[in-house]
Structures are given as C-alpha cells and as structure tokens.
C-alpha cells in the first residue's frame, strides 16, 4: 500500500458519496437536518481536488490533507468527526504501510472520532460502522489474510454495522431528540462510513 492507493481511496470515496448524495440526504432528512449528503459531497470533492492539485509525497500526508480539508469544508458534525479519523490516522501511520500498520492507524483514527463525539457503539452514529470495520481489519491481520480480502471484510462489516443501526434509538446529535421515533431509520453517518470502507475495498480489488 502506498501513497497512490490512499489518494485513490479518497477519489473513490468522493465518487461514491457524490453518487449516493441523495440517499444520504434522505436518510438524514428522516432523523437529522437533511444536509449529510451535500455536506459530505462538498467535503470529499474538496479532498479529491486538493490531493489532485498538490499530490502528497507520503501516505501520512494524504491522510493529513484529507483530515484538514474535511474539518474546514464540511460545515456539519461529520466534518470534525471524519476529519479527526484521518488526521489521527496520518499521525499514527508508519512507513512503509503494511496491512497491520494500516489497521492499527485506522483503529486509532476511530478512537479519535469516538472521543471527539463522545459516542460509543450502539449510539446510532458513524461509530456503529467504523468500529466493526476496525475490528474486521484487526481480525484479518491476526488471521494473516491478504489486503484485498481484509478490506472486503471491513467493507462488509461496515455495511452490516450501518444496517444494524436501523432498530437502534439514537443517543447522539439531533436524532437523539426524537427518542423512540429515531427507531426504524438507518443512521446517515453509519451509511457514509460504510461507503468509505466500500471505496477502500474497491481501490485494492
């Protein structure tokens, strides 16, 4: 895994988020403030543009650029949260990048988002997709599976995690004010986190 793979990850994420923009916004309209699709579309487009305009030299720089751009450009809660994931990953990632190193950095990135948002598994947030993805990567490292399969498993875990938010009652953000009325809807943050992991699986496939 090198700088190009990470740049491709963000380009593919930008493409997926743009394609799924309406679905993310519709999910957010049900329990949030209906801006998740447009906010993330703008944020990841800016990330892709920043990485294309001034290509970074190292994987850590790719992540630092992505994190800083999302924090500055998204405008909603997902900006600082995703921004923290990538900023922390950039600080934690060691060179050369191995699957084990990536998995460890990703876990630290997820922890950074959990700390910033004070969210835990089961709160019906992006954490419900990110943590299963992180656990899947850790298991893949332990079992010695290849990069491609590891990222496929992480993508599946994130997608399952996102779907598993449907019966949950929200405990964070605007949706938490809905109480029981937040039950029955997929969390938009978990849905976008699943796209992020799907993009990763695609670029190493």
């Amino acid at each position, binding site marked *: 895994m090198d700088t190009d793979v990470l740049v491709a990850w963000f380009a593919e994420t930008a493409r997926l988020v743009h394609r799924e923009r309406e679905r993310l916004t519709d999910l957010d309209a049900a329990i949030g*403030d209906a801006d998740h699709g447009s906010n993330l579309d703008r944020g990841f487009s800016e990330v892709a543009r920043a990485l294309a305009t001034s290509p970074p030299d190292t994987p850590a720089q790719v992540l630092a650029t992505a994190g800083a751009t999302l*924090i500055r450009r998204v*405008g*909603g*809660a997902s*900006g*600082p*949260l995703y*921004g923290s994931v990538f900023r922390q990953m950039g600080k934690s990632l060691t060179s050369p990048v191995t699957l084990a190193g990536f998995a460890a950095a990703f876990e630290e990135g997820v922890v950074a988002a959990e700390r*910033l948002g004070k969210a835990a598994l089961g709160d019906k947030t992006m954490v419900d997709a990110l943590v299963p993805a992180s656990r899947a990567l850790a298991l893949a490292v332990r079992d010695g599976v290849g990069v491609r399969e590891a990222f496929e498993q992480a993508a599946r875990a994130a997608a399952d995690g996102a779907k598993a938010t449907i019966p949950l009652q929200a405990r964070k953000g605007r949706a938490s004010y809905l109480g029981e009325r937040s039950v029955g809807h997929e969390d938009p943050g978990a849905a976008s986190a699943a796209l992020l992991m799907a993009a990763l699986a695609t670029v190493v496939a």
Partner: protein
Amino acid sequence: MVGLVLVSHSAGLAAETVALVRGIAGPEPPLAAAGGTRDGGLGTSLELIEEAVRAVDRGAGVVIVPDLGSSVLTARLVEEDGRVVVADVPFVEGAIAAAVAAGAGAPLADVLAAAEESRAYRKI
C-alpha cells in the same frame, strides 16, 4: 482580559447573542461571534472560529461557548490546554455569565467556572 467567542450554527444568532451579551456585560470583555458557514449557510466554520479566537485573544485566554452539534465538535478542535477552552454550558446564560466574569477581570479558570454555574440556574 479573557476573551469570549460565541459559536452558533446561525450567523444571526451568534451576532445577536454577542449584542445581547455586550448590552448586559458592558464594554470591557472582548467578544466575537463565529456563526454559520463562510458562505452564509447554517453550520460551523473552523476558519470563522479561528479568526474569532484571534480577534479576542488578549493573552489571558479565550472561552468558546458553542450552541450544539458541529459547533461543539469544531470548537473542540481549536482548544489549547489552559489557553483556549470550550465551555459546556447553555448558550445564552453561559455566555452572559462568562462575559460578566471576564469583564470583571477574572482569570480563565474563574470565567469558565462562572459559565459552568449557569448550568444550574433555575428560571422559575
């Protein structure tokens, strides 16, 4: 003197709250609003918060009072230990309590404590 930054999803709410706080706390405390996004929409801008912090920083520290959600998360990204702190307080009451304390020359820890006391204020 400790500075105060009010962060809201709405530029109008942040600006009007600063006007209210100014009216009640008086001319002394440095106050700045960081409301909405750069393009005038509802949301939070890290850059507007950073600019507001710089504008009220007189060397004695800055207290940021956010409204909710992304305001809180974004404000927490500019925290500097012992220098720039986010107050977990009601927006209006917390801002007024902090500004009155700051205007009286209280140090950062006391301004933050004054803001936090507002969490327990009963209205009736």
